[in-house]
């Protein structure tokens, strides 16, 4: 695994100095890295140029394309489908054709879906996370209005709404028919997509060993495979057995908030507001740790080919 720590160098104190990357994704061909930041901008980079810095010049390492989706609106989540780059911002979901993203021209969205909101327009509803199910071609949106929406790609409309949280949703994870969601209210809900209902729920903050009241009870990230579920946030990163919902391992990693927890093969990738990004095994041992320069990592994505990379991005 290789890593990229991304920094922008500028001599002017402008917004890029204080930029934070909230979401990343790769293009379907795997050659480009797409980033979304808190100012509503999408940055497209050539992966090969960045990975081998000796071969490329400063000029080539600059973004291939930068465009703004909406001014001053956080881009909370990015998802790659075969045809589109799906962007979740505050209140809207946009879809962009890949050709448009990779070219240098003005980017216009191919489609846009507005999240229905019944509040007054003062606070827009963030689309905090999205996950895409390839087989059913459906997109799950976890939003700031405490709901999870199901959207079908062909229809381009929201089909279903799942209520189950009392505060906004931080993270979603979907494998097959199971969907796990974690939110600011401290709940981890396990849904069955066929029946569209909560099957199980966990509240890690209720566990004394896991809970960290000084940080809060919010769950920043959830991840699961067939047997195990891992989650963390304000509470410590912990692993639970899916069926029995028993706590199995509490990971002793130093942090002040988990924003990323993901299963990769037999290992767990975890990170957040910490000095390191951790690679852990299911027994709770730290296999490797990567030092990070930003305060918090909000997004970690990986791919195996054409480049074997892990990209970490956050508040820097």
């Amino acid at each position, binding site marked *: 695994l290789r890593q990229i720590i991304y920094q922008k*160098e500028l001599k002017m104190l402008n917004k890029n100095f204080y930029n934070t990357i909230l979401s990343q994704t790769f293009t379907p061909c795997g050659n480009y890295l797409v980033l979304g930041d808190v100012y509503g901008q999408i940055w497209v980079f050539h992966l090969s140029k960045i990975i081998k810095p000796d071969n490329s010049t400063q000029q080539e390492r600059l973004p291939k394309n930068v465009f703004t989706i909406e001014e001053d609106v956080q881009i909370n989540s990015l998802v790659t489908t075969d045809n589109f780059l799906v962007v979740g911002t505050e209140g809207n979901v946009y879809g962009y054709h890949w050709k448009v993203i990779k070219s240098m021209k003005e980017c216009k969205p191919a489609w846009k879906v507005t999240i229905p909101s019944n509040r007054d327009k003062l606070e827009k509803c963030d689309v905090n996370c999205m996950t895409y199910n390839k087989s059913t071609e459906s997109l799950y949106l976890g939003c700031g209005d405490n709901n999870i929406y199901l959207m079908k790609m062909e229809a381009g409309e929201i089909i279903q709404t799942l209520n189950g949280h009392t505060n906004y949703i931080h993270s979603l994870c979907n494998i097959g028919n199971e969907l796990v969601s974690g939110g600011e209210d401290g709940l981890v809900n396990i849904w069955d997509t066929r029946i569209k209902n909560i099957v199980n729920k966990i509240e890690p903050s209720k566990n004394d060993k896991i809970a960290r009241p000084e940080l809060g009870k919010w769950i920043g990230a959830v991840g699961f495979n067939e047997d195990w579920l891992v989650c963390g946030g304000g509470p410590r990163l912990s692993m639970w057995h899916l069926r029995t919902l028993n706590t199995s391992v509490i990971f002793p990693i130093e942090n002040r908030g988990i924003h990323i927890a993901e299963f990769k093969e037999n290992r767990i990738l975890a990170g957040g507001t910490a000095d390191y990004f951790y690679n852990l095994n299911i027994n709770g041992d730290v296999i490797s740790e990567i030092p990070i320069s930003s305060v918090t990592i909000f997004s970690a994505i990986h791919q195996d080919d054409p480049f074997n990379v892990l990209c970490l991005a956050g508040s820097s």
Partner: protein
Amino acid sequence: MVKDSTSIKKRRKNTAPTENEGEGDIYTKVVEFEEKESAQRAAEDDANIYFDLCKNIRNYLAEVLLLKQENTNESRGRIQKGLSESCVMIAVLKKLNRLDKFRTITSRENLNTEKQKVDSTNLQYHNLLYEAAHLASEYTKCKQFKSKDEDIELVPVETFLQLAPELMTQQFKTGELTDAKRHQLHLAMLEWELTQRKAQAQLCDTFEEEKKHLATDIVALKNRLEGIGPKLTAVLEASKPLQEYLGLPIDKIQAEHRLAYLLPEPLYLLYALTDAYKQVYNINMEVEILGDYDEANQWKEMHQSLDMKVDVESEPEADQQEIEEVVEVVKKRRHRKISQVDKNEEKKKVLLESHPLCVQITMNVKSGFVLKVKFMFRPQLNIVTVTSSTDVPNTITANTAREALIGESILNELLDEDFGTESPNPSTSYQLQRVGFTSFAALVPKLGFAYNWAQKICGYDFLSIDKNQCNKPDPACVELIIKSIYRRLKSRIDLALQLQHLEQNLIPTIPDTVEYPKNAESTLTKWVLYSWQNYCQLPATAQLIENEIVQATDLFYSATISRPKATLQAVIAIKNNYPLKSPIFSLTLKYNGEFHGGNSDEIRDMERAVNLGWSTAISSASWVLSAQLRHLCSFLDVYLESLTPSVFPQKTVFFKSVSGRNRRKPFKFRKIGAGI
């Protein structure tokens, strides 16, 4: 004897002419007869007779002798006979002699006549010879003779034929030119030439006359003009009271202009441009020339003849001489060193000297704030240096406020990266090295700043070492510079006013057009000046310094905002071109530990909210800092209240304490009702 007799006879003839007339006739007849005779008788014959006679005489004498010896009577008779015979013979001899004489005379006469003839022919011959020679020489002379007319340039024949009057030329136009005609032609041409030349000479004379006239006219006019000078000055003197009455200070302007002519070139250019600018725009600005008139005059005369640069360049030779001489005696060496040092000091002085005149621009803004900018020209270094001073009214007492306004830093970075500590003239470094100075920056306190824009408005355009500078806007425009100085002054004054309030821990008032949260629990508790070293040591500022956003030449302050139990220390860097770049805050929160942008996302967010998004117009200079501070106060409130609402009761209005995946705090201010 014959001669005597003839001469006696002739004498007799002469003395007795009357009685000798008849004798004369006889004589002449005799002579004639004798002449004939001599002519007739052959000379040879006579010669023979003579010889015979002589012989006979000799024989007779011999006989006589014998006879005498005999001495008988017969002999005496014979002697007598012989005597008479001999007498006769002698007479014959005489005759013969006479004849002979006649003959010689006649032959002589003939000879003479012939001689005379020969002589005359000879003479004639000679005469002819001479004449011939003479003629020959005359001939050659003639041949060599160049008539004066050959020297005279004549117009070519064709032109002559065209230009001369018809009468003359007609005979030449027809028929072939024989020699005679050619001669005629030549003569005619000469004549014509003569007439033409006469005409030209006349023309020349008339022109000369005219010229003389004009010359005298000119002289007269000159005299008049010279007379006008003093009259005009008299008029000016007389007009002074009128000027005062009308308020046109023409005299003062004249005096200034007179001084202006003595300014060195770059300063003169500056003076002219700024004067023009002032007149056009009529703003509160004054341009004056400071310095002594006489000194300037002296300086000008001194430097007009000398080429000062030659002196400096003769240094290497002087150095060599020094080295050679050092090889000498020790005593002398010491002496040499002293003079060497002196020379060096002198060289330094010479290098750094400035022209006695300098231009000062005084700008007035608001009440009591006066900025004086003085431009001095350094001829050796060939640059213009600037010193500035500000007069600040007594209302500004705060240290920090004064700091912002006082002289030096006020003109720093008027244009990008122009600190004035490096001489824009690339040759200055060589000159300084030669004399022993290390760098220009060390001399700045003495000389003043050498700003790039100062060089440009004085007309100097040096090649800059940094190529990137070529793309920047051309500050040769005086207008631009003066406007930017004004803006700088105004913004600094605004800043100073704010600082004045802040030092007393009062956040100054902000105009109503700007939105800001009005109610905040946290208050400003301290405001002090901060140093660059301290700034660098704070962890909160590490990122900024690393990215070279902040530099040692900016102004630094430290503000403390507190609410019971929690303090927020903000270190503020204000750049020289405030408010074009808004002040940069670096925050450190002390509550339950120390948090700053490097270890806390929320503080980083707070920093972002307070640093970015402000208007950079000049007009905002008066409130940007205050607005930032006010916002910061309410941010602190929001943070603390959202963090632990139990400890800090919520006074500010915000909807959600956290939102979004990054759990950000609501630091955005929107004015709705009382404010959020």
